[in-house]
C-alpha cells in the first residue's frame, strides 16, 4: 500500500455483488455400455450443431450397431430456458432415453 502524491489513501467498497449459494447436484450415474441403448442427440439452433451430431451418430452406430438414436432440434440456444411451450415435448423425449450427446455449436 502506498500513498499518492497528496498522501491520500482510499478505502474502497467492493463492486462484486453477492449471490446466494445454489444447491449443488452431482452428475447422473453413467452407463456400463452404449450397446443396445437409446441415445438422444440434442442440438441447438447454431448451424454447426446438427452437422456435429450427424458425424457423432454415424460414429456411434459404427461402434455400437445396436444403439438407437433420437434427435431433438432446439429452435433456440436452449430448450429448457427459452422454449417454455416445448417443455412437455422435451421432457417426454428425455424420458425415453438412456443417455444424451449434446452439441451447442460453439
Amino acid at each position, binding site marked *: *500500500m*502506498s*500513498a*499518492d502524491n497528496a498522501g*491520500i*489513501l*482510499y*478505502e*474502497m*467498497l*467492493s*463492486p*462484486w*455483488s*453477492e*449471490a*446466494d*449459494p*445454489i*444447491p*449443488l*447436484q*452431482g*452428475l*447422473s*450415474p*453413467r*452407463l456400463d455400455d*452404449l450397446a443396445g441403448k437409446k441415445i*438422444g442427440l*440434442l442440438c*441447438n*439452433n*447454431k448451424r*454447426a450443431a446438427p*452437422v*456435429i451430431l450427424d*458425424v*457423432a451418430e454415424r*460414429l*456411434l452406430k459404427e*461402434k455400437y450397431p445396436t444403439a438407437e438414436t433420437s434427435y431433438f432440434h*432446439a429452435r433456440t*440456444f*436452449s*430448450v*429448457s*430456458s*427459452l422454449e417454455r411451450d416445448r417443455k412437455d415435448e422435451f421432457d417426454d423425449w*428425455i*424420458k425415453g*432415453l438412456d*443417455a*444424451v*450427446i*449434446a*452439441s*451447442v*455449436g*460453439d
Partner: protein
Amino acid sequence: MYDAIYIEKAGKPTVTFAFEHFLNDAMSAASSKGMPVVRVVPETIVSESTVVADIEKAITAVFDDAVAALTKPLTAEEKSPQPREQENPPRIIFKGSLEDVNRFFYQRGWTDGLPIIPPTESAVAEMCTGTDLPADHIVAELEPRRGKATVEKIAINAVMAGCLPTYMPLLIAGVECLSDNPVSGMMAASTGSFSPFWLINGPVAKDINARATYGAASPGDIANATIGRALGLLTKNIRGVRKQVEDMGVLGNPGKYTWVAAENEEFSPFEPQHVERGLKKEDSAITLTFPQSFQQMMPFGTDAKGILATVIGSIVPARMGQFILLLTPAHARSFADAGWTKKAIKEYIVKNAVVPEDYFERLGLDGSRAFDRGTGSGPGGTRDIFRPSRHDPDPVQVFVYGGFGSWMGFAQGGPPPVTRKAELPKDWAKLMAKYKNIVPNYIRY
C-alpha cells in the same frame, strides 16, 4: 449447456461437445445452474463453422472421449460436488492510493480497462442520494451469476464509471431493463458481440445534459459516457459476464464501453420512443437494445423516397434480430412532412426488405441452410428479411437523434427493445440543481 444440465438433473447421463475455447464459458454456465462439474468434450470446431470436413475430422478425433464421458464411472467430486468458496468479498475490499486502487481493481477483473474513480464510502453515499430506495434494496438478480444488484452495488459501479448521482434513476431503470429482457445475459456473452445501446427519453435527458444532438453517441458528455460504462461494469461485476470467460464475443464491440444517446425529442416530429412503448411523454425512461453492428451512410436522397431506398437496398439477410433505423431530426422531418408516421416507415421496411431472387445464385451460394436463425432467410429459405413473430412482433424500430445533417444510420441485431420508467427521487429538483451545471465549457481558439 443449460439443456445438458437440465437433462443430467432428470437423471440421464449427458455429454456435450464444446469448442475448446469455450470451456470456461461452459463451466460458468453449469455452475450457475448448480452443477459445477459437468462432462464436456472439447473439440476444435470453430463456432458457427460450416466446413463439414473440419467438423468430420474434429468429432472423429474426440468421439471416444464422448463415449467415455457417458460410460466412465463418476468420481467422488462428480457424484457430490463440494461448494466452492463463495466469492462474496467483504464490503471494504481495499485501501490504497489512486494508483494502487486502479491496479487492484484492474487485476481483479473489475474494470473495463480504463481508469476508475475510487468507490469510497462517501462517494457511494453521495451516489445513493440519486434514489429514494434504500442502499440494500435489491433491484434485480442478474443471470448467469445471479448477482444481487442492490442499490449500493449499482452505486459503487456508478462511482467507478464516473457517474453523477443524478444518473441513478436511469441506472436503476437500466438494471431493470437488463433483468426484464430474458436473453440479455446471453446477449452479453454471445459470440456475436452484441452491445447494449441505451436510449434516454423524457425530461431527465435535459436535466442531466444527456446529449441528443450532434455527436450524441460520441465521447465528450459525462452522462452519455458514464451511464453506458456503469451498466457495462455492472454486467461484469454483478451479472458475472467477463471477457473470454463468459463473454465470448469474437470480434468485440466498442459499444460495450458505452453506447448512449438521448432521443432528440425537441426536434423530432414523431412520438418519442418511450411514448411508443406505453409511457407518458412527461415520464423519464431508458430503452435497452442489443445491436451487434452500427453502420452509417449517406442516403440516395434526403427525402423519404431516398432514405427508404437506401434502407431497402442495404439490408442484408446475414443479420440477427432487430433493425433500428437511426434518423436525424432533419430526416424525420422529411418523413413527417410527406405524411409518414413511424408505424408506416416500419411497415414499409418489413414489407419491402426482401432478398432479390438471384441474390444467393449471384453469390455462388447453393446450400439450404438459413443464414438468419430468426427469419429463416438464406439459400432455399424465405426471401423475407423480416418476419414478425410472437417473440419479435415489431422487428423494426425508428430512433431519432443527432444533429442536423444528412447522414443516416442502422443499428442491427438483438432482441426486441425493453423500456423502463426512471423513478426520480423526491428531492430531484435540489439534486439536479447541484449537478446540472457540470458541463464542458470549450474555449475558442
